[in-house]
């Protein structure tokens, strides 16, 4: 049946291969539109849920602990070593034109404006985003999300709202910490290992650092936190197909969050200029 139809098209000059490609593109496009719609609905409802009673303080705190407190070690290590390597690299580079005294400035600016928020976002994305997708995905495939609905509790408000709020609040806080340990790490390498003068280094660090640098980094972090929770919850919430589906959702959450963070980072930086 099908090949007769294609033969007819072929005779008229249509290319059956082309037709298949076009229908595939169409399918992908409509799928994309559908996903975007579903994501928007979920996010709007989840944001509403943050402000509507019941406020579920305990659940909010639990998620903040999960996203924030439990990400402390990995954030501290990432921040400290990034600051240290930055000091080392820029020292080597600046030595070539005798500008070693600027190392402190470079470290402080790169960390607060760029590396603090972005690296924290990526690290927490991998940690908390994937765990949200896995947890919600498992809840979906074992019907726990349906069970919430049958107990007359809106699963979006119960599960997604606290996670969204936690990402939005905890990411900037973690970034402040990453900024601090990053700058300390840079100071440690410069002063204790490379032998720079501590007083000069500290003055250089804070002389050129403006509020705007820190604050733009924190706004970025809040956006990244929103992305991580939003994508992680969305992927998990609509997972289907058992263990395999949960695996796919988890991978999808990390990959999509990474891509969105990297792209939105550029856009936000451009906006702040």
């Amino acid at each position, binding site marked *: 049946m099908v090949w007769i139809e294609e033969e007819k098209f072929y005779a008229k000059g249509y290319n059956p291969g082309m037709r298949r490609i076009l229908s595939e593109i169409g399918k992908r496009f409509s799928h994309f539109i559908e996903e975007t719609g579903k994501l928007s609905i979920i996010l709007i409802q989840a944001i509403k849920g943050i402000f509507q009673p019941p406020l579920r303080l305990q659940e909010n705190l639990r998620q903040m602990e999960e996203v924030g407190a439990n990400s402390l070690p990995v954030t501290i290590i990432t921040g400290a070593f990034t600051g240290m390597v930055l000091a080392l690299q820029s020292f080597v580079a600046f030595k070539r034109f005798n500008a070693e005294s600027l190392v402190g400035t470079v470290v402080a600016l790169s960390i607060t404006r760029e590396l603090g928020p972005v690296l924290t976002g990526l690290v927490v994305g991998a940690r908390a985003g994937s765990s949200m997708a896995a947890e919600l995905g498992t809840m979906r495939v074992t019907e726990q999300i*349906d069970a919430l609905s*049958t107990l007359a509790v*809106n699963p979006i408000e119960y599960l997604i709202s606290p996670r969204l709020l936690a990402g939005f609040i905890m990411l900037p806080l973690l970034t402040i910490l990453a900024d601090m340990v990053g700058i300390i790490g840079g100071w440690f390498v410069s002063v204790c290992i490379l032998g720079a003068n501590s007083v000069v280094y500290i003055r250089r660090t804070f002389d050129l650092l403006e509020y705007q640098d820190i604050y733009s980094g924190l706004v970025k972090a809040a956006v990244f936190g929103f992305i991580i929770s939003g994508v992680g919850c969305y992927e998990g919430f609509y997972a289907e197909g058992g263990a395999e589906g949960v695996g796919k959702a988890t991978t999808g959450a990390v990959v999509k969050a990474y891509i969105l963070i990297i792209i939105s980072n550029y856009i936000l930086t451009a906006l702040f200029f």
Partner: protein
Amino acid sequence: MIKLIEVHKIFGSNQVLRGVNLHIHRGESMVVIGQSGCGKSVLLKHVIGLLRPDKGQVFIDGQDLLSCSEKKLYEIRKKFGMLFQGAALFDSMTVGGNVGFGLREHTLFSQEEIKKRVQEKLKILGLSGIEGLKPNEISGGMKKRVGLARAIAMEPEILLYDEPTTGLDPIMADVINDLIVRLKGTFQVTSLTITHDMKSAYKIADRIAMLYDGRIIEIGTPDEIQKTKNLIVQQFITGSARGPITEREEMNGIKNEIVG
């Protein structure tokens, strides 16, 4: 109490429900039987509004689930308790947390009061003293009973059972059947059960309906169903491998081969 009128549901190209009509009276225990994958679970999810019909209507106490607002839908759901096939216990909470979940969310009872009610419900189901355990620390049969305790914690008017005896040993299956019958006696609930376990169906049903090919093809008391003249129903309730159901499946297989 529960009324389904011409309910249609399509998933992709698969027409699961093709016009289901079902009327369940107050206080009645209705059992829907049918093969695996015939749409029984889909039917059940329509009753509590987890799925929306593509065509048709669902009424609960005269309230149309399709046209009511989301807020109203959640209000209506408070009348329900549902036991899931895999129990669907929240594994982040203890047994006590699971059973008391509805009470914590929807009532202003004190911690003490909730604890008392949880213990009371667990006792009805013969599960005293396990409030502190996590769902992964208890057996499958216990999970089902905890699921049942969670479903009745808010003392609902309607109970939905999704294959309550599937995956349990025969003795535990009968324990669950007994509990279902007892709950009906004590709380005067209306219930809708879906199952393919005929022994269970005969025991708990006031009426049995058979879902086949997306429609209810037969409905009657357990006695009437046992004496049915309908060959399809006969094949299903006697559980034989030969009969109109399997013949039709074979025909479909041959048809697919020719077309495909």
